[in-house]
Protein backbone atom coordinates (compact mmCIF):
# COMPACT_ATOMS: atom_id res chain seq x y z
CA UNK A 1 0.00 0.00 0.00
CA UNK A 2 1.31 3.45 -0.90
CA UNK A 3 1.45 6.42 1.49
CA UNK A 4 -1.85 8.02 2.44
CA UNK A 5 -3.14 10.52 4.95
CA UNK A 6 -4.50 8.56 7.89
CA UNK A 7 -8.14 8.96 8.85
CA UNK A 8 -8.94 10.32 12.32
CA UNK A 9 -10.50 6.97 13.20
CA UNK A 10 -7.28 5.13 12.36
CA UNK A 11 -5.35 7.62 14.44
CA UNK A 12 -7.73 7.23 17.38
CA UNK A 13 -7.53 3.46 17.24
CA UNK A 14 -3.73 3.70 17.10
CA UNK A 15 -3.56 6.03 20.12
CA UNK A 16 -5.94 3.86 22.13
CA UNK A 17 -4.16 0.59 21.32
CA UNK A 18 -7.16 -0.80 19.45
CA UNK A 19 -5.23 -2.18 16.45
CA UNK A 20 -3.84 -5.60 15.63
CA UNK A 21 -0.10 -5.92 15.32
CA UNK A 22 -0.28 -5.83 11.50
CA UNK A 23 -2.57 -2.80 11.49
CA UNK A 24 -0.29 -1.01 13.93
CA UNK A 25 2.77 -1.65 11.72
CA UNK A 26 0.89 -0.37 8.70
CA UNK A 27 -0.13 2.83 10.52
CA UNK A 28 3.46 3.39 11.67
CA UNK A 29 4.64 3.00 8.08
CA UNK A 30 2.09 5.57 6.99
CA UNK A 31 3.18 7.90 9.76
CA UNK A 32 6.79 7.71 8.67
CA UNK A 33 5.86 8.48 5.09
CA UNK A 34 3.46 11.33 5.60
CA UNK A 35 4.07 14.43 7.72
CA UNK A 36 0.36 15.36 7.58
CA UNK A 37 -0.53 12.11 9.32
CA UNK A 38 2.13 12.68 11.96
CA UNK A 39 0.74 16.13 12.62
CA UNK A 40 -2.78 14.74 13.05
CA UNK A 41 -1.47 12.05 15.35
CA UNK A 42 0.26 14.60 17.56
CA UNK A 43 -2.87 16.71 17.81
CA UNK A 44 -5.06 13.77 18.77
CA UNK A 45 -2.46 12.52 21.22
CA UNK A 46 -2.53 15.90 22.92
CA UNK A 47 -6.30 15.71 23.23
CA UNK A 48 -6.07 12.22 24.75
CA UNK A 49 -3.42 13.45 27.19
CA UNK A 50 -5.45 16.52 28.14
CA UNK A 51 -8.54 14.50 28.90
CA UNK A 52 -6.46 12.01 30.88
CA UNK A 53 -5.15 14.88 32.96
CA UNK A 54 -8.72 15.90 33.79
CA UNK A 55 -9.45 12.43 35.08
CA UNK A 56 -6.14 12.14 36.87
CA UNK A 57 -6.99 15.30 38.76
CA UNK A 58 -10.20 13.65 39.95
CA UNK A 59 -8.87 10.15 40.61
CA UNK A 60 -5.38 10.87 41.87
CA UNK A 61 -5.63 14.29 43.48
CA UNK A 62 -9.14 14.65 44.84
CA UNK A 63 -9.62 12.94 48.21
CA UNK A 64 -13.37 13.07 47.63
CA UNK A 65 -12.98 10.29 45.06
CA UNK A 66 -12.00 7.78 47.73
CA UNK A 67 -14.63 9.12 50.10
CA UNK A 68 -17.30 8.50 47.44
CA UNK A 69 -16.07 4.97 46.86
CA UNK A 70 -16.22 4.33 50.59
CA UNK A 71 -19.68 5.81 50.74
CA UNK A 72 -20.97 3.40 48.09
CA UNK A 73 -19.19 0.41 49.57
CA UNK A 74 -20.49 1.11 53.07
CA UNK A 75 -24.05 1.56 51.93
CA UNK A 76 -26.56 -0.79 53.51
CA UNK A 77 -30.18 -0.59 52.41
CA UNK A 78 -32.82 0.12 55.03
CA UNK A 79 -35.08 -2.85 55.89
CA UNK A 80 -38.09 -0.99 54.47
CA UNK A 81 -36.32 -0.69 51.09
CA UNK A 82 -35.70 -4.41 51.09
CA UNK A 83 -39.35 -5.03 51.98
CA UNK A 84 -40.42 -2.81 49.10
CA UNK A 85 -38.08 -4.65 46.78
CA UNK A 86 -39.44 -8.00 47.95
CA UNK A 87 -42.98 -6.80 47.18
CA UNK A 88 -41.88 -5.62 43.75
CA UNK A 89 -40.36 -8.99 43.02
CA UNK A 90 -43.47 -10.74 44.28
CA UNK A 91 -45.77 -8.61 42.14
CA UNK A 92 -43.76 -7.41 39.14
CA UNK A 93 -46.87 -6.20 37.28
CA UNK A 94 -46.91 -2.50 38.21
CA UNK A 95 -50.60 -2.01 37.41
CA UNK A 96 -51.58 -4.95 39.52
CA UNK A 97 -49.39 -3.73 42.36
CA UNK A 98 -50.93 -0.27 42.12
CA UNK A 99 -54.45 -1.75 42.24
CA UNK A 100 -53.57 -3.77 45.33
CA UNK A 101 -52.01 -0.78 47.05
CA UNK A 102 -54.99 1.41 46.14
CA UNK A 103 -57.30 -1.20 47.57
CA UNK A 104 -55.26 -1.48 50.75
CA UNK A 105 -55.01 2.25 51.26
CA UNK A 106 -58.69 2.61 50.47
CA UNK A 107 -59.54 0.08 53.19
CA UNK A 108 -57.29 1.83 55.66
CA UNK A 109 -57.75 5.49 54.84
CA UNK A 110 -60.42 5.92 52.19
CA UNK A 111 -59.75 6.39 48.54
CA UNK A 112 -58.48 9.92 48.33
CA UNK A 113 -54.91 10.93 47.92
CA UNK A 114 -52.87 12.59 50.64
CA UNK A 115 -52.85 15.72 48.52
CA UNK A 116 -56.61 16.07 48.74
CA UNK A 117 -56.30 15.64 52.48
CA UNK A 118 -54.13 18.70 52.82
CA UNK A 119 -57.18 20.86 52.41
CA UNK A 120 -58.86 22.66 55.22
CA UNK A 121 -57.62 22.36 58.77
CA UNK A 122 -54.15 21.72 60.18
CA UNK A 123 -55.70 18.87 62.16
CA UNK A 124 -55.31 16.51 59.27
CA UNK A 125 -52.42 14.56 60.68
CA UNK A 126 -53.18 10.85 60.83
CA UNK A 127 -50.27 10.31 63.15
CA UNK A 128 -51.90 12.23 65.96
CA UNK A 129 -52.29 9.85 68.86
CA UNK A 130 -55.59 9.09 70.50
CA UNK A 131 -54.35 10.73 73.69
CA UNK A 132 -53.66 13.92 71.77
CA UNK A 133 -57.14 13.73 70.31
CA UNK A 134 -58.66 13.38 73.77
CA UNK A 135 -56.75 16.39 75.05
CA UNK A 136 -57.72 18.38 72.03
CA UNK A 137 -61.40 17.56 72.43
CA UNK A 138 -61.28 18.87 76.00
CA UNK A 139 -59.67 22.06 74.87
CA UNK A 140 -61.56 22.50 71.64
CA UNK A 141 -65.16 22.79 72.64
CA UNK A 142 -66.66 26.23 72.69
CA UNK A 143 -63.46 28.10 71.95
CA UNK A 144 -64.70 30.89 69.65
CA UNK A 145 -61.27 31.72 68.20
CA UNK A 146 -60.69 28.08 67.34
CA UNK A 147 -64.17 27.77 65.81
CA UNK A 148 -63.72 31.03 63.91
CA UNK A 149 -60.33 30.04 62.55
CA UNK A 150 -61.27 26.52 61.54
CA UNK A 151 -64.61 27.40 60.12
CA UNK A 152 -63.19 30.40 58.28
CA UNK A 153 -60.45 28.26 56.81
CA UNK A 154 -62.95 25.58 55.88
CA UNK A 155 -65.17 28.03 54.11
CA UNK A 156 -62.21 29.66 52.34
CA UNK A 157 -60.89 26.30 51.18
CA UNK A 158 -64.25 25.47 49.73
CA UNK A 159 -64.73 28.87 48.18
CA UNK A 160 -63.85 27.38 44.82
CA UNK A 161 -66.99 25.31 44.93
CA UNK A 162 -69.18 28.02 46.36
CA UNK A 163 -69.89 29.26 42.90
CA UNK A 164 -71.10 25.78 42.04
CA UNK A 165 -73.14 25.66 45.23
CA UNK A 166 -74.72 28.96 44.32
CA UNK A 167 -75.63 27.69 40.91
CA UNK A 168 -77.00 24.37 42.13
CA UNK A 169 -78.49 25.53 45.44
CA UNK A 170 -79.04 29.28 45.32
CA UNK A 171 -80.97 28.97 48.57
CA UNK A 172 -77.70 28.18 50.43
CA UNK A 173 -76.09 31.48 49.54
CA UNK A 174 -77.49 33.49 52.38
CA UNK A 175 -76.45 30.86 54.95
CA UNK A 176 -72.94 30.54 53.57
CA UNK A 177 -72.41 34.27 53.55
CA UNK A 178 -73.73 34.55 57.07
CA UNK A 179 -71.47 31.69 58.16
CA UNK A 180 -68.49 33.43 56.67
CA UNK A 181 -69.14 36.68 58.46
CA UNK A 182 -69.77 34.94 61.81
CA UNK A 183 -66.56 32.95 61.39
CA UNK A 184 -64.69 36.22 60.88
CA UNK A 185 -66.33 37.73 63.97
CA UNK A 186 -65.61 34.68 66.15
CA UNK A 187 -61.88 35.12 65.60
CA UNK A 188 -62.06 38.35 67.60
CA UNK A 189 -64.73 37.62 70.21
CA UNK A 190 -63.95 36.68 73.81
CA UNK A 191 -65.03 33.22 74.94
CA UNK A 192 -67.56 34.62 77.42
CA UNK A 193 -69.27 36.67 74.72
CA UNK A 194 -69.38 34.08 71.98
CA UNK A 195 -72.46 32.07 72.94
CA UNK A 196 -74.99 33.90 70.73
CA UNK A 197 -72.81 33.60 67.62
CA UNK A 198 -72.05 29.96 68.26
CA UNK A 199 -75.74 29.24 68.77
CA UNK A 200 -76.59 30.98 65.48
CA UNK A 201 -74.01 29.15 63.39
CA UNK A 202 -74.89 25.82 65.01
CA UNK A 203 -78.47 26.24 63.87
CA UNK A 204 -77.33 27.44 60.44
CA UNK A 205 -75.03 24.51 59.90
CA UNK A 206 -77.54 21.99 61.20
CA UNK A 207 -79.93 23.32 58.61
CA UNK A 208 -77.28 22.91 55.89
CA UNK A 209 -76.59 19.36 57.04
CA UNK A 210 -80.27 18.55 56.97
CA UNK A 211 -80.61 19.91 53.46
CA UNK A 212 -77.60 17.94 52.35
CA UNK A 213 -75.00 20.63 51.55
CA UNK A 214 -71.89 18.66 50.62
CA UNK A 215 -69.17 19.04 53.26
CA UNK A 216 -71.54 20.51 55.86
CA UNK A 217 -71.15 17.75 58.44
CA UNK A 218 -67.54 18.60 59.04
CA UNK A 219 -68.54 22.18 59.83
CA UNK A 220 -70.86 20.89 62.50
CA UNK A 221 -68.03 18.89 64.01
CA UNK A 222 -65.88 22.01 64.03
CA UNK A 223 -68.54 23.98 65.87
CA UNK A 224 -69.42 21.38 68.50
CA UNK A 225 -65.74 20.66 69.11
CA UNK A 226 -65.70 17.05 67.96
CA UNK A 227 -62.32 15.65 67.09
CA UNK A 228 -61.83 15.62 63.35
CA UNK A 229 -59.98 12.74 61.78
CA UNK A 230 -58.55 12.13 58.37
CA UNK A 231 -61.62 10.11 57.41
CA UNK A 232 -63.82 13.12 58.13
CA UNK A 233 -61.88 15.17 55.61
CA UNK A 234 -61.98 12.32 53.16
CA UNK A 235 -65.70 12.07 53.55
CA UNK A 236 -66.18 15.80 53.09
CA UNK A 237 -63.99 15.84 50.00
CA UNK A 238 -65.81 12.81 48.60
CA UNK A 239 -69.16 14.48 49.11
CA UNK A 240 -67.97 17.61 47.36
CA UNK A 241 -66.31 15.68 44.53
CA UNK A 242 -69.53 13.73 44.01
CA UNK A 243 -71.50 16.95 44.03
CA UNK A 244 -69.25 18.55 41.44
CA UNK A 245 -69.50 15.46 39.25
CA UNK A 246 -73.27 15.45 39.53
CA UNK A 247 -73.68 18.98 38.24
CA UNK A 248 -71.15 18.76 35.41
Amino acid at each position, binding site marked *: MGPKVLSIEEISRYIDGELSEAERRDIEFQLESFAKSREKLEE*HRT*VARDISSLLDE*VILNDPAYHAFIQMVQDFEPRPI*DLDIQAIRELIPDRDRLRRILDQLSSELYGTLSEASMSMMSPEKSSSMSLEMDRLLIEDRSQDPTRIGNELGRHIEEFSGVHALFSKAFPEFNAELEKLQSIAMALRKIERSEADPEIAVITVLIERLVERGLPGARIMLKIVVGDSIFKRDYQKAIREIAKFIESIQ
Partner: protein
Amino acid sequence: MDELKKQLVAAIPQMMLYARSRVGHPDEANELVQEALERILKRLPQLSGAEVNFIAYGKRVIRNVHVERWRASRRMVQLDDAAFEEVCSQSGISTTYIDTLKVFRKLSEQCQSLLGLVAERYKYAEIALILEMSEGAVAGAISRCRSAFLTFMKGGR
Protein backbone atom coordinates in the same frame (compact mmCIF):
# COMPACT_ATOMS: atom_id res chain seq x y z
CA MET B 1 -26.45 -5.50 45.41
CA ASP B 2 -22.66 -5.90 45.44
CA GLU B 3 -22.60 -5.99 41.65
CA LEU B 4 -24.62 -2.76 41.49
CA LYS B 5 -22.30 -1.12 43.99
CA LYS B 6 -19.33 -2.15 41.88
CA GLN B 7 -20.87 -0.63 38.77
CA LEU B 8 -21.72 2.54 40.64
CA VAL B 9 -18.17 2.83 41.97
CA ALA B 10 -16.89 2.47 38.41
CA ALA B 11 -19.07 5.39 37.32
CA ILE B 12 -17.79 7.77 40.00
CA PRO B 13 -14.86 9.30 38.04
CA GLN B 14 -17.15 10.15 35.12
CA MET B 15 -19.74 11.57 37.49
CA MET B 16 -17.11 13.72 39.20
CA LEU B 17 -15.72 14.96 35.92
CA TYR B 18 -19.20 15.71 34.64
CA ALA B 19 -20.04 17.65 37.80
CA ARG B 20 -16.84 19.66 37.46
CA SER B 21 -17.64 20.43 33.86
CA ARG B 22 -20.98 21.84 35.00
CA VAL B 23 -19.96 23.93 37.99
CA GLY B 24 -16.18 24.34 37.81
CA HIS B 25 -15.25 24.52 41.47
CA PRO B 26 -14.25 21.07 42.77
CA ASP B 27 -15.99 21.51 46.13
CA GLU B 28 -19.25 22.52 44.55
CA ALA B 29 -18.92 19.69 42.02
CA ASN B 30 -18.32 17.20 44.81
CA GLU B 31 -21.42 18.40 46.63
CA LEU B 32 -23.43 17.59 43.52
CA VAL B 33 -21.85 14.15 43.28
CA GLN B 34 -22.45 13.49 46.97
CA GLU B 35 -26.13 14.29 46.69
CA ALA B 36 -26.48 12.35 43.46
CA LEU B 37 -24.87 9.30 45.03
CA GLU B 38 -27.14 9.54 48.05
CA ARG B 39 -30.17 9.59 45.77
CA ILE B 40 -28.92 6.68 43.70
CA LEU B 41 -28.05 4.63 46.76
CA LYS B 42 -31.54 5.17 48.15
CA ARG B 43 -32.91 3.59 44.98
CA LEU B 44 -30.28 0.89 44.70
CA PRO B 45 -32.40 -1.93 46.20
CA GLN B 46 -35.07 -1.24 43.58
CA LEU B 47 -32.51 -1.52 40.80
CA SER B 48 -31.54 -5.02 41.80
CA GLY B 49 -31.60 -7.28 38.75
CA ALA B 50 -31.98 -4.39 36.33
CA GLU B 51 -29.52 -3.41 33.60
CA VAL B 52 -28.41 0.04 34.67
CA ASN B 53 -26.09 2.36 32.83
CA PHE B 54 -24.72 4.08 35.90
CA ILE B 55 -22.73 6.64 33.96
CA ALA B 56 -25.82 7.90 32.16
CA TYR B 57 -27.95 7.53 35.29
CA GLY B 58 -25.37 9.26 37.47
CA LYS B 59 -25.05 12.17 35.08
CA ARG B 60 -28.80 12.53 34.86
CA VAL B 61 -29.13 12.68 38.63
CA ILE B 62 -26.29 15.21 38.87
CA ARG B 63 -28.01 17.33 36.26
CA ASN B 64 -31.27 17.17 38.22
CA VAL B 65 -29.58 18.05 41.50
CA HIS B 66 -27.81 20.95 39.82
CA VAL B 67 -30.99 22.29 38.26
CA GLU B 68 -32.87 21.96 41.55
CA ARG B 69 -30.16 23.87 43.39
CA TRP B 70 -30.17 26.49 40.70
CA ARG B 71 -33.91 26.89 41.04
CA ALA B 72 -33.55 27.19 44.80
CA SER B 73 -30.76 29.75 44.63
CA ARG B 74 -31.85 31.50 41.41
CA ARG B 75 -28.26 31.50 40.20
CA MET B 76 -27.10 30.79 36.67
CA VAL B 77 -27.26 27.10 35.95
CA GLN B 78 -24.77 27.24 33.13
CA LEU B 79 -21.78 29.51 33.63
CA ASP B 80 -20.26 31.31 30.66
CA ASP B 81 -16.54 30.89 30.00
CA ALA B 82 -15.46 33.89 32.05
CA ALA B 83 -17.61 33.02 35.06
CA PHE B 84 -16.54 29.39 34.83
CA GLU B 85 -12.87 30.40 34.79
CA GLU B 86 -13.39 32.64 37.78
CA VAL B 87 -15.06 29.87 39.78
CA CYS B 88 -12.29 27.41 38.89
CA SER B 89 -9.54 29.89 39.75
CA GLN B 90 -10.87 30.25 43.27
CA SER B 91 -10.00 26.64 43.94
CA GLY B 92 -6.34 27.17 43.07
CA ILE B 93 -6.18 24.71 40.19
CA SER B 94 -3.77 25.20 37.31
CA THR B 95 -4.64 27.32 34.30
CA THR B 96 -3.87 24.43 31.94
CA TYR B 97 -6.41 22.30 33.77
CA ILE B 98 -8.98 25.09 33.64
CA ASP B 99 -8.40 25.59 29.89
CA THR B 100 -8.87 21.88 29.24
CA LEU B 101 -11.99 21.71 31.40
CA LYS B 102 -13.41 24.75 29.61
CA VAL B 103 -13.10 22.93 26.30
CA PHE B 104 -14.30 19.63 27.73
CA ARG B 105 -17.53 21.18 29.01
CA LYS B 106 -18.39 22.35 25.50
CA LEU B 107 -18.51 18.77 24.25
CA SER B 108 -21.76 16.85 24.10
CA GLU B 109 -22.45 14.55 27.03
CA GLN B 110 -21.85 11.54 24.81
CA CYS B 111 -18.44 12.88 23.79
CA GLN B 112 -17.61 13.59 27.41
CA SER B 113 -18.44 10.00 28.32
CA LEU B 114 -16.56 8.50 25.39
CA LEU B 115 -13.39 10.52 25.91
CA GLY B 116 -13.63 10.15 29.66
CA LEU B 117 -13.91 6.39 29.47
CA VAL B 118 -11.10 6.03 26.98
CA ALA B 119 -8.97 8.19 29.27
CA GLU B 120 -9.75 5.70 32.03
CA ARG B 121 -8.17 3.07 29.77
CA TYR B 122 -11.38 1.22 28.97
CA LYS B 123 -11.18 -0.80 25.76
CA TYR B 124 -13.54 0.12 22.91
CA ALA B 125 -15.45 -3.13 23.42
CA GLU B 126 -16.04 -2.27 27.08
CA ILE B 127 -17.09 1.28 26.24
CA ALA B 128 -19.51 -0.11 23.68
CA LEU B 129 -21.12 -2.20 26.43
CA ILE B 130 -21.22 0.61 28.95
CA LEU B 131 -22.70 3.16 26.56
CA GLU B 132 -24.85 0.67 24.66
CA MET B 133 -23.23 1.38 21.30
CA SER B 134 -21.69 -0.88 18.70
CA GLU B 135 -17.93 -1.17 18.82
CA GLY B 136 -17.63 0.35 15.36
CA ALA B 137 -19.74 3.31 16.40
CA VAL B 138 -17.52 3.82 19.46
CA ALA B 139 -14.37 4.00 17.31
CA GLY B 140 -15.94 6.51 14.90
CA ALA B 141 -17.45 8.58 17.69
CA ILE B 142 -14.21 8.79 19.70
CA SER B 143 -12.31 10.11 16.73
CA ARG B 144 -15.03 12.66 15.97
CA CYS B 145 -15.13 13.75 19.62
CA ARG B 146 -11.38 14.27 19.65
CA SER B 147 -11.68 16.35 16.49
CA ALA B 148 -14.45 18.38 18.10
CA PHE B 149 -12.24 18.90 21.15
CA LEU B 150 -9.44 20.10 18.89
CA THR B 151 -11.77 22.48 17.09
CA PHE B 152 -12.95 24.00 20.38
CA MET B 153 -9.36 24.14 21.62
CA LYS B 154 -8.41 26.17 18.56
CA GLY B 155 -11.29 28.52 19.29
CA GLY B 156 -13.74 27.12 16.76
CA ARG B 157 -17.40 26.37 17.34
